[in-house]
């Protein structure tokens, strides 16, 4: 029994961190409506600053290339107190700058825009940390006294108790401040509505800024406090934000008490599972304790979410603009032809990069459909891709199912997963959905992708090359790598999927999807069954992502789970968003220009050797796009003098259309039909009037 108690106490360590971060997230959300995915990254960066001060006395600034290491002590380690204070100030200033630069301009933006901006900040900080500090994890000396305490026959480090104490104190202080002070009142009022805050006489922006600073201070504090407990590395620290988000979600982003409690509880559950694994050997031995909190978050969120109310819930924020594909078949054929020309023209590594671009397009198309058309944010898209890739490797490797069937069957098998992850979307909306899907991705990471039987462990799993009618379609053929046939196969599949998505956009289904995105409530009142429609979108999106996964597997020959980590899902959403998530052209641009192994980046890397900065640039581009142009690059191109419009004009000049059936003209035709009624029931209103008065 006492062993179980020991693990409860040990779990307080991680739990405290989740709780502290969660409290900061609640503060930020309550004052600005932003769910800050970069919150963990701020803790991470502060932790690195602290560790560097303590070991060498160097102050690390959060950028690259420019001088960023300022020696403060001439190489001597700094004492605890000054290092602590400097780091806390540092975190606060960093938070304030980010608020002023990124979040303040977005106070009234759409949830997806806010999500993408904060993902941009997160990617930036993480990538900067990787470049400046490396990825090997550091261990540091303790801060809190950690001499063992003996209790009920067990000995455990006392710092866990201090940590939990700090959490409780912070939660109580926040509770009191926000319930009883004028500042707290103003924050509550500004969360309700802005005039409320104005009545109290404080500008909502000022309130938001102050809350943001307090939250950043908490983030920096928790970053410092965990360093002795968990070894420090950029990725895992940044990802502490996921359980913290879970805790905040359980507190509904409102309650400090519940958030702190949930954070501690998640840590305890996690730690207890480690113990249980040793007792019950039938439990999954990999990833259970990492995955369990996310599963808990998924379930609680889904069950506790409120139904959409009768009125007023649908916000007034703007969604990203949508494209309006004209003549999809012709466009697809032209795209295919151009693609083949590029394939033939390029060679070696650039041709391989072009192939990566095509595969990324496929994955991005799955997001255009789901997040662009239906407005459902998914931060688990790469999990679909990964499952598709591994299933293909099982189907074509172990089971020997031949090429087109294995790919299609593999993608079909991803569909149930898509529906499963889509289930929360029936009750959870907007940013909360982003958090829930992120939790799902993290759970998949921990429970599915770490399963050696499924993913082949560190070495990954190999995938036999595709072939049809005895023709080798694989990426390598003898000495030739990469082969044109493989590229053509990619083009055929991905262009066809693009064609389908374009068709969908202009069909009745597409209109229903966009109606749901615009106004879910009104959609239900005209007879749309919102829930099945959303699941349909998730299923279709998972299928497309699954195909993308299969293609990726064929391209790489060996798939390993590291390609599908949580961060990759964030990145892929980010690049699609920047490129234009409402348009098929957005997916094309994302693949060609922004994919880290795609054509443009590989070209730059080849010429300028800047590949290592890709993530940093992506992060900045994402934040800037979110602020300056939430419709994405593709929308810019679709404007008055844009490239897209020129393409359409050129296309229509070379392949004239008769009769031209553009969207406008169709409308006019319909209007004409209205003036010349087809059915006897249709009586123009003017006549009716005459009857009534005559």
């Amino acid at each position, binding site marked *: 029994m006492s062993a179980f108690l020991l693990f409860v106490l040990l779990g307080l360590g991680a739990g405290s961190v989740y709780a502290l971060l969660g409290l900061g997230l609640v503060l930020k959300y309550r004052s600005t409506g932003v769910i800050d995915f970069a919150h963990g990254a701020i803790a991470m960066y502060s932790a690195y600053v602290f560790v560097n001060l303590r070991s060498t006395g160097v102050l690390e600034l959060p950028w690259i290339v420019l001088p960023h290491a300022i020696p403060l002590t001439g190489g001597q380690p700094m004492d605890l107190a000054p290092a602590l204070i400097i780091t806390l100030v540092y975190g606060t200033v960093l938070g304030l700058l980010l608020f002023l630069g990124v979040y303040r301009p977005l106070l009234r933006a759409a949830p997806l825009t806010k999500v993408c901006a904060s993902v941009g900040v997160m990617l930036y900080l993480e990538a900067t940390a990787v470049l400046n500090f490396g990825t090997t994890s550091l261990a540091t000396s303790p801060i809190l006294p950690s001499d063992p305490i003996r209790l009920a026959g067990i000995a455990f480090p006392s710092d866990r108790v201090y940590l939990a104490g700090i959490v409780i104190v912070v939660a109580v202080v926040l509770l009191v401040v926000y319930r009883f002070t004028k500042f707290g009142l103003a924050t509550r009022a500004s969360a309700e509505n802005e005039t409320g805050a104005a009545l109290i006489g404080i500008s909502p922006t000022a309130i938001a800024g102050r809350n943001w600073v307090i939250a950043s201070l908490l983030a920096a504090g928790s970053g410092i406090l965990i360093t002795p407990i968990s070894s420090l590395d950029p990725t895992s620290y940044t990802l502490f934000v996921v359980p913290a988000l879970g805790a905040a979600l359980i507190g509904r982003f409102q309650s400090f008490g519940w958030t702190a409690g949930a954070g501690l509880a998640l840590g305890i559950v996690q730690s207890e599972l480690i113990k249980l694994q040793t007792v019950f050997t039938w439990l999954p031995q990999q990833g259970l304790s990492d995955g369990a909190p996310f599963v808990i978050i998924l379930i609680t969120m889904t069950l506790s979410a409120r*139904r959409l109310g*009768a*009125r007023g819930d*649908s916000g007034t924020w703007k*969604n990203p603009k*949508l494209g309006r594909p004209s003549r999809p078949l012709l466009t697809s054929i032209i795209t295919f032809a151009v693609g083949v020309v590029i394939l033939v023209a390029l060679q070696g590594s650039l041709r391989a990069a072009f192939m990566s671009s095509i595969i990324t397009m496929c994955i991005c198309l799955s997001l255009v459909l789901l997040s662009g058309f239906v407005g459902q944010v998914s931060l688990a898209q790469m999990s679909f891709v990964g499952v598709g890739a591994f299933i293909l490797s099982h189907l074509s490797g172990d089971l020997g199912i031949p090429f087109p069937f294995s790919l299609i069957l593999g993608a079909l098998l991803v569909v149930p997963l898509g529906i499963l992850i889509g289930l929360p979307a029936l009750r959870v909306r907007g940013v909360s959905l982003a958090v829930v899907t992120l939790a799902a991705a993290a759970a998949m990471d921990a429970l599915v992708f770490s399963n050696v039987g499924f993913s082949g462990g560190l070495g990954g799993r190999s995938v036999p090359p595709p072939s049809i009618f005895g023709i080798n379609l694989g990426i390598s053929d003898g000495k030739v790598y990469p082969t044109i046939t493989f590229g053509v196969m990619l083009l055929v599949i991905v262009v066809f999927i693009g064609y*389908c998505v374009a*068709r*969908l956009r*202009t*069909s*009745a*289904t*597409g*209109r*229903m999807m*966009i*109606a749901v*995105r*615009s*106004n879910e*409530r*009104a*959609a*239900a*009142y*005209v*007879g*749309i*069954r*919102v829930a099945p429609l959303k699941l*349909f979108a998730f299923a279709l999106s998972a299928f497309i992502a699954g195909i993308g996964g299969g293609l990726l597997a064929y391209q790489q020959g060996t798939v390993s789970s590291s390609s599908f980590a949580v961060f990759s899902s964030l990145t892929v959403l980010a690049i699609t968003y920047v490129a234009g998530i409402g348009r098929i052209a957005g997916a094309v641009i994302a693949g060609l220009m922004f994919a880290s192994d795609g054509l443009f980046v590989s070209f730059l890397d080849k010429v300028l050797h800047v590949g290592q900065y890709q993530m940093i640039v992506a992060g900045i581009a994402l934040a800037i796009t979110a602020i300056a142009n939430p419709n994405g690059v593709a929308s810019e191109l679709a404007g008055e003098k844009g490239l897209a419009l020129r393409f359409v004009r050129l296309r229509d000049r070379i392949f004239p259309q008769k009769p031209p059936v553009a*969207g*406008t003209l*169709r*409308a*006019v035709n*319909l*209007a004409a*039909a*209205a*003036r010349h*009624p*087809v*059915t006897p*029931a*249709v*009586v*123009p*209103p003017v006549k*009716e*009037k005459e009857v*009534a008065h005559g």
Partner: protein
Amino acid sequence: MTRLLDVNDLRVSYGAVVAVNDVSLTIDEGEIVGLIGPNGAGKSSFIDALTGAIRNRGGNVQFEGRTLDRLAPHAVARRGLLRTFQSVELFDDLTILENLQVAAEQPTFLSMLRDLVVPSKPKGVDDIAWASSLCDLDDVLDRFPQELSHGQRKLAGVARALAKRPRLVLMDEPAAGLDTDESIAFGERLRSLPGHGVSVLLVDHDMELVLGVCDRIFVLDFGSVIGVGTPDEIRNDERVIEAYLGGHDVEA
């Protein structure tokens, strides 16, 4: 005349506030029925409750002889009972035409899959043409809702409901924001609806419109019906004048 809608003791409460207090109301086929009352009387709540938005409402509702109790909004709409919104609520990312199409089309699962590959014939063209010409939207079909005047948006909301060829439309303040001429024109359009097999429950503050167009009028105050009658009876009902028309000078 056959009974279309039969509402018995409908009750809606938000916590302690009783917004609709045991309201009974009937609508016959081909009727235009008015529902008036001061702000906060519970008119919108009544519509919400009828169309399935409020789960635990009291009372029961029969529509064309079948119960609507516990049906979700989409199911109510598919039965032919449509509503419009006080706050318009068009689909902002779709053109007016597409707004009407969304209501008129009802794709099946199979047609949704087929749509992915081959374009299918447009559905509900006649209904859309009818709704659009009735609401005078033919010239703005390819515009987006934000490009329209407020009055046109309101009409588009009505047209969207009509495009589904409903049996009964519940209109929540469709004439709010229309000027006098527009309101008169709208009244004429309304009058023509029963001829097309569409009955109407009209909620509006524009007394001229309501008194001019309705066959019967229900008056709601603090959630309760305080008067029912023809426009003439309502005009002269003491309690109604006191509670609602108050100091207003109501001319015929």
